[in-house]
C-alpha cells in the first residue's frame, strides 16, 4: 500500500491552518459523525475497524470507548496522550506538527462517541512546536465552530484544553498522565478502578494516543471495512513506523500494519548506513525486547512480534549496525530508565539503578565473573513485580540483549574491552 492515509496532508503548504485543512477535505468526518451518526454507531464503527491503540499497549480502541458509562448526566473527559516519550518514537510529534487538525478532528469524534464534554491535550514538555500547533489549532477550531457550545448546531458541546507536561517519561502512562493533569506528582495510580470508571478528577475518562485519534476520521469517512482491509487479521490499518539509528534514511514511514521489518529497513529506510551489517533491532522503542537479523521477516503487528519474544510497542524501529557495542547501548537505555523511574515502587526505582551500576562496571572494564547472571537475576527480580508496566519495560532490552549477545557481555568482562 503506497497510498498515504495519516500522512496524506504532509507536504501540503500551511495545512496546519484550518482553512487549508478544510480545503483538503478536513472536518468532513466530524460533520458526518455529528450529523449522521449516533455516538454508539461511531463506537461500533471503530470496533468494527479493529483499530488498536497506537501508544504501545495495543488495546482495542472501540472496546475501550464502549467501556465508558453511557449515562449522559455524568461528566466525562477525554485525554489526548501527546506525551510521546518512548525513546526512538517521533510519530505523534510528526503528526501534530504537520497536520494537527487531523488529530483534533479525531479527538472531537472520540469525545462525541464517549460523551465527553471536556478534552485535555497532554503535550510532552519537550515539544514546543507541538504545543504551539495545538494552541493555534484549538483556537481555530473554536473560531469555526468545531469546538465550544452546540457544535454544528447539535446538542454536543466540547471544550478543549492544551496542557504542557514537565518532561517525565512516566506521564505517558495513562494514570500518571491524569495525576499530572490534576496537578499531582506524575505517578501511576492503582488499577482498578480503571480510568473509564474513575479517571481524571474522579470522572470516567478515556485516554487515547495521538496516532490512534488520527486514524478515527478516516474510519468514519471511508468505513470500518476499508480500514480493516489494511494490515493483518488482528492489527488493522495504517501505522507510522519511526525508523531511527543506523539506516540511510531515518524517518517516519506510513505502512500497513504487518509490514515486515526487512521491508521497512531495506525497502523504505534505505538499508543500513554505509553498507554495514545489521546487528540488532528494537522493534517498538527501548521498552521492547531486542531482535536480530534472523527476525527480519517478522511482520510488524501486535500479534506476530510476541511470537518471537518482542512487542510492537509504538512501532519505533531502532536499528543498530555491527559497529554498535551492545553493552554500551543497553547501558544508555538503563540510564534512561533509571532517570525516568517515577520512584514509586522499589523494584523499578532501585532495580534500574542497580542495573545501571552493573552495566557501567562491565562497560568500564571492571566487570566481574557472574555479572551477567546477576543481571538476569535482577531482571527476574524486577519483571512482573513493579507497580506499572514500566518495570517490565526496563528489563526488556537488557534481558533480550543477554539472550542474543551474551558472548559480548562475557568478552567485556573477560578481556576488559569491547569486541567491536
Amino acid at each position, binding site marked *: 500500500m503506497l497510498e498515504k492515509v495519516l500522512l496524506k496532508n504532509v507536504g501540503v503548504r500551511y495545512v496546519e491552518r484550518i482553512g487549508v485543512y478544510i480545503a483538503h477535505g478536513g472536518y468532513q468526518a466530524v460533520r458526518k459523525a455529528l450529523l449522521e451518526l449516533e455516538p454508539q454507531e461511531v463506537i461500533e464503527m471503530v470496533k468494527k475497524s479493529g483499530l488498536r491503540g497506537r501508544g504501545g499497549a495495543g488495546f482495542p480502541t472501540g472496546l475501550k470507548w464502549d467501556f465508558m458509562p453511557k449515562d449522559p448526566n455524568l461528566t466525562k473527559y477525554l485525554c489526548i496522550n501527546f506525551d510521546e516519550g518512548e525513546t526512538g518514537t517521533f510519530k505523534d510529534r510528526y503528526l501534530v506538527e504537520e497536520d494537527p487538525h487531523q488529530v483534533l478532528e479525531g479527538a472531537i469524534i472520540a469525545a462525541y462517541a464517549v460523551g465527553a464534554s471536556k478534552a485535555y491535550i497532554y503535550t510532552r514538555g519537550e515539544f514546543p512546536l507541538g504545543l504551539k500547533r495545538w494552541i493555534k489549532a484549538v483556537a481555530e477550531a473554536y473560531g469555526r465552530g468545531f469546538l465550544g457550545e452546540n457544535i454544528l448546531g447539535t446538542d454536543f458541546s466540547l471544550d478543549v484544553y492544551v496542557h504542557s507536561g514537565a518532561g517525565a517519561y512516566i506521564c505517558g502512562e495513562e494514570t500518571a498522565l491524569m495525576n499530572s493533569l490534576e496537578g499531582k506528582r506524575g505517578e501511576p495510580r492503582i488499577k482498578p478502578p480503571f480510568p473509564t470508571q474513575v479517571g481524571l478528577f474522579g470522572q470516567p475518562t478515556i485516554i487515547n494516543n495521538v496516532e490512534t485519534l488520527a486514524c478515527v476520521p478516516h474510519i468514519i469517512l471511508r468505513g470500518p471495512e476499508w480500514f480493516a482491509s489494511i494490515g493483518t487479521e488482528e492489527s488493522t490499518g495504517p501505522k507510522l513506523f519511526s525508523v531511527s539509528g543506523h539506516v540511510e534514511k531515518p524517518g517516519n514511514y506510513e505502512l500497513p500494519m504487518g509490514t515486515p521489518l526487512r521491508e521497512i529497513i531495506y525497502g523504505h529506510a534505505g538499508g543500513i548506513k554505509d553498507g554495514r551489517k545489521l546487528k540488532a533491532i528494537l522493534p517498538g522503542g527501548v521498552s521492547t525486547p531486542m531482535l536480530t537479523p534472523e527476525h527480519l521477516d517478522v511482520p510488524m503487528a501486535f500479534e506476530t512480534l510476541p511470537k518471537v519474544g518482542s512487542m510492537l510497542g509504538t512501532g519505533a524501529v531502532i536499528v543498530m549496525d555491527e559497529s554498535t557495542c551492545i553493552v554500551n547501548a543497553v547501558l544508555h537505555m538503563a540510564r534512561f530508565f533509571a532517570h525516568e523511574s517515577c520512584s514509586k515502587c522499589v523494584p523499578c526505582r*532501585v532495580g534500574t539503578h542497580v542495573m545501571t551500576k552493573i552495566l557501567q562496571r562491565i562497560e568500564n572494564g571492571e566487570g566481574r565473573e557472574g555479572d551477567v547472571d546477576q543481571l538476569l537475576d535482577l531482571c527476574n527480580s524486577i519483571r*512482573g513485580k513493579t507497580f506499572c508496566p514500566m518495570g517490565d519495560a526496563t528489563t526488556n532490552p537488557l534481558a533480550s540483549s543477554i539472550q542474543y549477545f551474551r558472548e559480548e557481555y562475557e568478552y567485556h568482562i573477560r578481556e576488559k574491552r569491547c569486541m567491536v
Partner: protein
Amino acid sequence: MAEEITLTIDGKEVKGERGDTILQVCQKNGIDVPTLCHFEGLSDIGSCRLCIAEIEERGRTRIDTSCTTPAVEGMVVQVSTKQLNEMRRAILELLFSEGNHYCMYCVASGDCELQDMAYRFGIDYIRWPLLYPERHIDASHKYVVMDPNRCILCRRCVRACAELVGNHTLGVGGRDSEAEIIADLKLPWGESSCVNAGACLQVCPTGAILDRRSAYKGKKDQVERVKSTCLFCSVGCGTELVSRDNYLIRVEGDWEAEPNKGILCAAGRFEPLYDEERTRVLRPLVKRDGRLEETTWDEALDLVAEKLGDSDKNALGALTSARATNETLELFAKLFRGIGVENIGCLEGPIAEPPEKEINLAELDEADMFIVVGEDLAEDHQVVGFFVKRGVNNRGARLVIVDDKETGFVPLAYRWLKPDEVEEAVRLCDAAARPAVIYGARAGEELAVLRKELAGKAGFFWMAPATNSRGALAAGLNGAFNAEAAQNVYVLACDDGKVGDELLARLKKANFVAVQSSYVEPWAEVADVVLPTVIWAEKEGTITNLEGRTLKVAKAVEPPAAVKGEAEVLKALIGRLGS
C-alpha cells in the same frame, strides 16, 4: 452488612467482605503477609511490593500486591510460597542497596521494620552493588530530624501528613536517585508549613524520621508503654506514654483510642517534654520573710488547715484547675463544701453548660461544611483542627469562620465572616447536606442565631474550654469565683500554668494563699504555702472529654519522692479540717 466472600489463601478457605483487599482478608484470618508501606489507617499505595501474592482468577495467574488487589469471590491466592519469598528477599536486598543502611549506628536498630524484615528473610549479604547515594540530613525542625539515608520511600509519612493530619506538608520530590521526602516545595522542614503533629514520626518504619529527645534513649524492648489520655486540652486524645527507668522519653498517639485515633498535636506530643521550663516543686514550701522555703508536709498541711479552719467562711475561697481528674474534682468539692465554702470556681473562669445533645468528634469526619465560631483551631484543640483540615483538604468540605479575630484557619476558609454577618453563614449552609458548627468559648450572640436557624440541620460541637470542663461541671465547680471576697484561698493548680494576670494580681492581695501545684511559676509571689503535686504523666484517674466520654488517665512514671498525689493531699486536709 457487607456481602461475604469466600476465597482460598494458601490452600485454606477463608472469608472476607466484598471491598476488602487480599491483605485485609489475610489480616482478618490471621495470615501473616510481610509489608513495609502498608499501615493500618492509611491508604494503600503498593509501593514496597513486599506483600506480593500469586493470584489465580478466572483461569489466569498473575503476581500482584495483596494490599492493592480487591479480593473477589472464588479467588485462589498464594501469599507464602518459596518463590514469593525469594522475590521478597530480592526486593529487600534492593532496598538495602539503595540507601545507606548502617544498622549498628542507627537510632532505630532493634525498632526498625526494615531490619526486622531482613532478619525474617535471612538476609546475611546483599547480592546487588550498593549505590551509596549522597543524601543530606534535614535537622532544621525543632522536634524531629529527617535522615534520608535511612528512608525507604514507603511514603507512610506523606500519607499520615495528608490523610490523618490533613496538612499535606510532606511530599515526594525528585525522581531517579534524587527522589526524597520533602516538606512543602523542598523547604527546610523547620521552615515549612509543618504543624508539628508528629504523625509522620510515629508511622516511619525505619530511623529516617527520629525524635530529637527520645533518640537513642531506649529501644522497644527496653521501654515501658502505658496507655493514657492527653491532659492538655478537652479533646482528651489517647496517648501512649513511653518511659524507661522512670524517665519519660516520648509521647505517642494511641491508634485505638476513640476520640483521636492516634493523632496528636504538638501540645500533647512534643511541647510538654521539650518546652517545659518551669521549676518543679519537690518539697512543700512555706513563705517566710517573703521567701519560699522548704518545710515538711506536716508543717505545711497544719498551716493550711489552721488558716482555712480559722477563717471566716465568707472570706474563704477555693479554686481548682479544670485539668484535675474527675476523682480529684469530686474530692475537692467535698472538702470545701464540707467546711462551708461557697466561693468556689475554676482557674479557667466560669464554664457555661452546653446543651445536652451535641455531636461527637467522629461525626466531624462526615460533615461537608464546617462553621467555626469563636475558636482558633490553629492554637487550641488542634486535633479538632486536623479533623477540619481533613474535611477541607481531602473531602472538599467548606469552611466558614465566624469570628472577630483573624484565626489561623482563615487562609483555609471559604469565607471569613464577622459575628454580625452570621446570617450569611446560615445562607451558605443551604448548599450543605451535613453542616457542623464548631463553637468555642468566645462564641457570643451569633451562636444563638446559628442554633435557631440551623436547628435540626447542623450538628453542634462544643469546644470545652478546659481539659476536664465536663468533670468540673459534674462536680458543680463551674460557677463564678469572687476574687474580691476571698481572703484565705486554696488553689489546686495541678501542672497548669495558664492563670490570668488579673486573677493573680487579686490573689496577691489576699491574706493567705495555699497552692497545690507542680511548678513554682506563676505562684512564687502569690503563694504562702506551696504543696507539691504530680504532673500529667504521674496522675491516675479519669477525665471527661468534650464529647462526654470518660477517659482513663494512667501513671507512666513515679513522682519525685516527696511529691504527693492530688487526692492524697486533699484527703489529708479533709482529715485535718474534719469536713
